[in-house]
């Protein structure tokens, strides 16, 4: 079955321009527990790729591997043409300023205000930027993510969960990255907030020309904004494609995921639009 599911782009010998993220033969294990085995994945430039899978299938571990927080046991990962798996610590800094990451809980620095959080990566990479310009950049980034300007001077503890996600997104976008990694951006948001966040991501992705790697459980997000969806199961990516393409496959997990009661509801909303 997995042979059938392999999407055609695996045969394309693409370069870094077409595929900013290329994962080949990835293997991750924790002790005896194998999370990924021989996992392949390509992300196309300019797309929003949704990554789905049951709990414990290693979606977050995959993301952590790609951004170099988790060293895989085997396999190769290339991001923007640079090998992550082969990189030494200092060598891969060059591409660290070309991606932004939004962690699940926001992972804002709790002792800094929102504006200072946004300024951290800017100060780190571009120390020659004037303080006034730093403040202006932080301000408009915060406003770009839909927060009121007053939120910029608040501390993370003073923000609601949804605002914290937006603030985290502002920090992820601080360096004008080409790649954006989002780990369950709409988890824990109310439906209206989640829908607004989806539109925000879509809008920013189009405005800024981003490639987005998005882990989600939210079927509405998948239907609304994802160009393609990658399904993680059986320790690998069993299929990548648009939702109709995935539904054409006869895999029990995919069928029950998209055709369960929640999947049907999300899909019907989509068709009513």
């Amino acid at each position, binding site marked *: 079955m997995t042979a059938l599911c392999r999407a055609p782009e695996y045969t394309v010998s693409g370069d870094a321009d077409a595929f900013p993220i290329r994962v080949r033969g990835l293997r991750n294990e924790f002790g005896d527990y194998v999370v990924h085995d021989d996992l392949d994945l390509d992300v196309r430039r300019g797309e929003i790729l949704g990554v789905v899978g049951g709990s414990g299938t290693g979606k977050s571990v995959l993301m952590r591997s790609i951004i170099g927080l988790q060293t895989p046991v085997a396999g190769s990962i290339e991001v923007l043409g640079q090998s992550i798996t082969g990189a030494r610590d200092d060598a891969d800094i060059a591409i660290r300023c070309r991606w932004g990451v939004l962690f699940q809980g926001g992972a804002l620095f*709790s*002792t800094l205000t929102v504006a200072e959080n946004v300024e951290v990566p800017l100060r780190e990479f571009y120390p*020659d930027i004037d303080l006034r310009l730093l*403040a202006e950049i932080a301000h*408009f980034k915060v406003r*770009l993510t839909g927060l009121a300007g007053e939120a910029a001077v608040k501390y993370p503890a003073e923000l609601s969960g949804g605002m914290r996600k937006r603030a985290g997104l502002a920090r992820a976008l601080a360096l004008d990255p080409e790649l954006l990694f989002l780990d369950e951006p709409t988890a824990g948001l109310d439906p209206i907030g989640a829908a607004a966040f989806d539109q925000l991501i879509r809008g920013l992705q189009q405005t800024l020309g981003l490639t987005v790697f998005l882990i989600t459980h939210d079927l509405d997000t998948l239907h609304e904004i994802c160009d393609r969806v990658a399904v993680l199961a059986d320790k690998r990516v069993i299929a990548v494609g648009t939702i109709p393409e995935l539904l054409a496959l006869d895999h029990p997990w995919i069928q029950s995921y998209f055709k369960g009661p929640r999947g049907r509801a999300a899909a019907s909303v989509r068709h009513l639009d």
Partner: protein
Amino acid sequence: MSDVPDFTLIPAEGGDTLVLTGAMVVSRVGPLDMRLRAIATPLAQIDLAGVTTIDTVGAWLCCRLSRDTGAAIINADDVAQRLIKALQGVDDGVTDEPVRPLPTWLRVPSEVGDAVVGMGHGTIGVLGFIGQIVMASGSMIRHPGRIRARALVHQMELVGVNALGIIGLMSFLVGIVIAQQGAVELRQFGAEVYTVNLVGRLTLRELGILMTAIMVAGRSGSAFAAEIGTMKLTEEVDAMRTIGVSPMEALVLPRVFATVLMMPLLGVYAALMGIIGGAFLAQLTLGIPFISFIARIRTVVPVYDVWVGLIKGPVFGLIVALAGCYQGMQVESNAEEVGKRTTAAVVMAIFTVIVLDAFFAVFFSEVNWG
């Protein structure tokens, strides 16, 4: 990416045209920004035809310039137009000035005032905390079934048993130092044999328990503050409350009781290790046999010296545990506070222990236990 962003001004009737060139990206516009701010002549147009690449920061500079001078942006390519449009949509005209600290002559009194008020709140807070502990202990005595024996034993192991090695070694070495220094001084009077009195009385009355209290404050008091503080941050303490588990009973009391119980035991152990250290040195350098040293301790050290140590033990233990648990429970907002509170717990514990030790010294000599 070698094209450094730059600009030229083309004078014209009714305002200059600013021609921007190069890569207007965040990595390169730092120096350009300051030069753009310095432009004093009125602008009519901002020409982006020479711009090779642009990102949001570059677009922001154009946006700001256009807003401040009223100049029109021309020859922008698709990307630039899109970015500038998005930024104009969110520009609310507000620019946050970088926060400037107060001048020193204002800051000093302000911080002194904050510290005084903080101390006042702290005193009231500690009193309230002691009250809570007394009430929780009272209800626990009335309902002995609620005593968390497992947590208590676990804490006793962490506070007491696991500290045996380091406290033993420390006391042994301190015993050696006292005997050595004492012997050097006493030799001048030919009274080296009084080294035994010195080591025995000093370790049992003062140093054993004091050094132990300092070590336990550093080892366990800090751990209490950090553990409870982190649990507060991750809302574990709130979760306990909602389940109906009192954090006082589950977190604070086992730690307080474990420390109160273990401190006198550790104190006596430390004193014994100190005496052994002294005896060891006496054997080596003074020629007093180990066994005679120990036997002589029994005749020269009055029994009330042991009692003094044993009475101080639980009090010091209570102070160390109280400081740790109180500071831990005060953590509210962020990770930095956990660190600050942990430091505060150790400083508060050691300081209070030493102050109280001085009071005890006066008190016991007044009751003729000197």
